Structures are given as structure tokens and as C-alpha cells.
């Protein structure tokens, strides 16, 4: 009996050890950045990389109203354009008492670097707004490139900054907001495959299971594309910004593209794919930037919170684009038929006003299918400013 008693003890000890359980596998994307500054910055410049959401007017020359001299431009930014309409990057920069201007302006092969330098030489160092409509993370062939958009990718935007300023400064406040156009490209590829699969299924060439598997595989390919874009962007932040002197670096995660009017116009079956592409980009961006000294801003949470309670933000319409595609088509002589806010002017009374009847740049959130109005940008910049305060940076 003594023996069995000691065995009983051994068993108890072993079970206690067992109770600790096996260690769980690492879950990619479950970490966080760490080590970003916690002190106020003495900012002398805002440096912004990205796409149309951060575009300060790259394509303004393309929006000239024919026959005007001096030229009058109907648009230039992806919002409800007017003489006083500003986007989030400008709002934020102004709030810091600084100035930011486009790093380049042009269209259809023409591009002028730092155009403000020729007009106001004292502002030559303010052209640090690199965002361009259509730009992707790495691929220079962005959305609209074939029809004239410059779409300089983020990797080249950063290289251009380094070519001009050699390195980043500890007094630069740096923003990276990119990946949306990679979502659109991946989604378009998926949608084309999905249409073919559905046609084949309808024609009896594929069984339901084969069709579902083909759709799942097409989604996986698109998700892999987003993973690659996120890892590349994260790599540029680490190797081309942080390693080159960047100190105050904010990287934005993407909003849910299914919540935009364009996303909402998609078939219900496709909307989860749209959401997944944004989410997957965010997952791998977070994973790549885990333990890196940056701050992440989750714009997905931000847009979700506005969508959930628009009136709290003074928004009366969260679903309909304020710009009228038919009006813009007439104004541009049929050249622009998709209602792009790049050509949308909100100045009351002018003949080139592109707002829909009853629409407002100050109470409607969306200018077009994917870009915010002037008030939409203001709400976004307010949120970013509040985040910067919570970081202790301003």
C-alpha cells in the first residue's frame, strides 16, 4: 500500500503539471507596434504618403474648364471641391500651424515636381504631400494609370522624398495611408473570376461544389495579394522610413470598403469579400509592424463608428454620393461618366457645380462611391488629431 500511495502522489504531481496545458500557437496579427515616441513633437513638416484619400490636387490640371483663361479648375481633389474645400491632411497640417502642398502635379505623362516652388519659393519645402489618386503600394500601374493618372506608388513616393531631403527628420510628422487601390484591383480580379465561375455554373459546366471551391480559391488569391501589399508596405515603413530617420510615424489601417456607397452597390454575396480584403490587409500590416516604433490608426473602427451613428457627427446622409454622375458627365462634355469626385465642384451657383440636387458638402458624408465630402474629411482629420493627442505627440 505504501507503494501505491507514492504512486498516487506521482500521479497528482503529474496531473498538476498537466494542468498548465500546451502553449498556444502564435497568431499572426495578434501583436502590436511598440516603442513609438510618447513625447510631444516639435513638428516642422507633415509628410504624407498614400492615395486619393491624401491627394492634395495632383490631377488638378486635368480638371480645367475648357475655354477658361486664366484656367479655372472644377476639381482636383477627391472630395466636394471648392475654393475653401480641404482634405484631412490639410486640416491636420493647418491645425499644427504648418503648410503642406502637393509633391507633384500633372496628368497624362506631364508631371511637375513641387509646383509651389515656382510660384512661392519660400514654400519650396512644403511639397511633402505625396498621395496620388489611384496609387498602389508597389505597382506603378495604379487605378486610372492607363487613362492618364500618374499613380506613383507609395514605394516611389518615399524614394522621391529621400531623393530630395536625403532622410526623414525627427521633426517630420509622417503619415502612411495606402492599400485601398490594392483592394480595388484585387477585388476587380476576384469579381471577374467570380462572374466567369457563375456563368459556367449556370451553364452546367461546374457543379455547385466546384463553383464554390473556385470562388473560395479566387478569394484566397485576392487575400494573398492583399497580404503581399501589406507586407510590402510594412517593409517600406520599416526600411525606408524608420531606418531613414523617421521618428513620428503613423500608419493607417484601411476602412471597410464594403461600407462605402460603392461597396454597398455590390451584390450582397460579394460584400463579405470586399470586407475580407480590407481586413486581411490590416491583419498583415499589423503583423509586419508588430514591435516596430510606429503608431497605427485603425480607420476601420473610425468609419464603422460613423456608419453606426451618423447624426452624432452631424451627418444626415451616410449612403448616397453627393456628386451627381449625370451632372459631371454634362459638365465634362461626356468625358467623365463615373461621377468621380475629382471633377466634382460644390461651389453654390457656378455652372460647373456637380452636386446632386439636395446634396450637401457639409452634411452628406460621401462625395462619390469611395471618397468623403469636405465634412467627411473634417470628421476624419478631427479623429486623427484626437488620436495624435492620445499618443502624446501634439
Amino acid at each position, binding site marked *: 500500500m505504501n507503494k501505491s500511495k507514492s*504512486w498516487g502522489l506521482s500521479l497528482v504531481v*503529474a496531473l498538476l503539471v498537466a494542468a498548465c496545458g500546451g502553449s498556444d500557437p502564435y497568431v499572426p496579427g495578434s501583436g502590436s507596434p511598440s516603442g513609438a515616441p510618447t513625447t510631444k513633437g516639435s513638428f516642422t513638416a507633415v509628410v504624407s504618403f498614400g492615395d486619393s484619400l491624401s491627394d492634395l490636387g495632383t490631377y488638378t490640371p486635368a480638371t480645367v474648364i475648357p475655354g477658361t483663361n486664366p484656367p479655372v479648375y472644377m476639381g482636383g481633389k477627391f472630395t466636394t471641391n471648392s475654393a475653401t474645400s480641404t482634405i484631412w491632411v490639410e486640416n491636420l497640417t493647418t491645425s499644427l500651424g504648418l503648410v503642406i502642398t502637393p509633391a507633384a502635379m500633372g496628368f497624362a505623362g506631364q508631371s511637375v515636381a513641387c509646383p509651389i516652388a515656382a510660384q512661392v519659393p519660400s514654400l519650396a519645402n512644403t511639397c511633402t504631400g505625396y498621395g496620388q489618386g489611384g496609387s498602389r503600394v508597389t505597382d506603378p500601374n495604379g487605378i486610372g494609370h492607363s487613362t492618364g493618372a500618374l499613380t506613383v506608388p507609395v514605394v516611389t513616393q518615399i524614394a522621391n522624398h529621400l531623393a530630395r531631403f536625403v532622410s526623414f527628420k525627427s521633426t517630420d510628422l509622417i503619415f502612411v495611408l495606402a492599400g485601398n487601390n490594392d483592394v480595388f484591383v484585387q477585388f476587380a480580379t476576384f469579381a471577374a473570376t467570380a462572374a466567369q465561375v457563375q456563368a459556367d455554373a449556370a451553364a452546367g459546366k461546374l457543379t455547385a461544389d466546384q463553383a464554390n471551391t473556385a470562388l473560395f480559391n479566387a478569394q*484566397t488569391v485576392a487575400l494573398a495579394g492583399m*497580404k503581399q501589399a501589406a507586407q510590402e508596405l510594412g517593409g517600406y515603413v520599416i526600411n525606408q522610413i524608420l531606418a531613414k530617420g523617421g521618428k513620428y510615424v503613423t500608419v493607417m489601417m484601411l476602412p471597410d470598403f464594403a461600407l462605402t456607397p460603392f461597396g454597398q452597390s455590390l451584390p450582397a454575396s460579394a460584400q463579405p469579400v470586399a470586407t475580407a480584403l480590407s481586413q486581411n490587409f490590416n*491583419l498583415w500590416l499589423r503583423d509586419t509592424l508588430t514591435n516596430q516604433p510606429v503608431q497605427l490608426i485603425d480607420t476601420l473602427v473610425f468609419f464603422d463608428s460613423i456608419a453606426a451613428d451618423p447624426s452624432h457627427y452631424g451627418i444626415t446622409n451616410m449612403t448616397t454620393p453627393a456628386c451627381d454622375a449625370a451632372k459631371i458627365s454634362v459638365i465634362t462634355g461626356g468625358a467623365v461618366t463615373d461621377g468621380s469626385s475629382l471633377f466634382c465642384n460644390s461651389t453654390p451657383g457656378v455652372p460647373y457645380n456637380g452636386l446632386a440636387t439636395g446634396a450637401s458638402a457639409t452634411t452628406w458624408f460621401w462625395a462619390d462611391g469611395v471618397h468623403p465630402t469636405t465634412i467627411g474629411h473634417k470628421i476624419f482629420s478631427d479623429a486623427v488629431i484626437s488620436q495624435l493627442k492620445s499618443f502624446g505627440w501634439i
Partner: protein
Amino acid sequence: MTSRLQTIAVAIAAMLAAGAASAQENAVKFGVVEYTTHAETSGITGVGVPPGADATVGNATTVVFTYERLLTPNIGAEIALGIPPTIKANAAGTVAFLGSDVLSAKVVAPAFFLNYHFGAIGDTWRPYLGIGFNYTRFMSIESTLAPSVQMSDSWGWAAQGGISYAINDKWSLFGSIAALQVKSNLVASGATVLQTSINFRPITYTIGAAYSF
């Protein structure tokens, strides 16, 4: 991990050292085991995975070896180790269209039991009941859905009931049924990250022969 293996090693050493060897205090057994699972999962979650995605886990057959040392005429300490069988999982629920064998893994699952043998040494039929614990490690994990899959190790209780039939004073036949607690968290990483946690709830059915010495 290491400390747990050490615990097992110490237990085995203690087992071997316990008492002077006398007739029929030791038994080695070998047999065929059917490893049947009754798995429940938390569902498969991840970016782009539709709600209701799930998986079912299949069964496996392998060969098991055990060593038992009688501590008293009625109480034995038993350690069991099988040749790791491969279990496979099929897609289920809203992703059932992905088909079978979406995941496979080799299951290394040693178990330790403290058995109570009814009757007395020399009886032809001796039923027994045992309780203990099992450790399960999943190896050679492969999935058609992701290039990298990891599963956590599992520690849990184990219980068995069996009966032995003595052919002579050395050889006997036995049959047993065991229930094990085996849970693992799975993370599959590819284009995106899939997660699930699986409660395998295995029942094993074993028949074999034993040699006592």
C-alpha cells in the same frame, strides 16, 4: 515540455525501481487500437471565412505498446504508447464544398494509467479499470488550405476499462476501451489566418496480447 517529459521519465524510473522483481509483476502488451474521435470544434474563424465554417475529424487505426507494473496484486501502473496514427479532417458546415482531407496530422499520444485489477493473480478472467492522464502532440501537420499550420499540445485526463483472459501464467489476451481528453488550438497561416479549437473527445478500442514476467 521538458519538465513534463522529465516527470514521465521519473515516473517510469520509479516504476522500474519499485520493489524487488517477483513473478508476474511486469507485463508488456501490444495490440491494435482504433482511435475514434467525436470531435467538436469552436467553428473555423478567420478573415474571409463564412459564418458556420467547420470541420469534422476522422478516425485512425494503429498499433499500441504498453508496459504495466503491478504495484500490488490488484493495482498496476501502466504506460501506453502507440505508433503515431495519422488523423484527417474534412471540411464541414458552410465550407463543406472544400471536401475531405483538408488537414492531416500525426498524433503522438502517450497515456499513463493507474489500473485496478479485479480478482486475483491466477484468475482466468480479470476485469480492470484505470484512470490517468494523456499527453498528445500533433506532428507533421499538413493542410491543403494553408502552408503553415500549428496545433497546441494537449494534456488531459484518461480513463479506461478492460478485461484480460489468461492463456497460461505468462500469456494473456486483453481488450479495453479508453476515453481521453484531448483539446488543441489550431492556427493556420497562409493568405490569411484561420483559427479553431478542437475538442477531439477520442474513444479508443484496443485488443491485443500481454506477456507477464
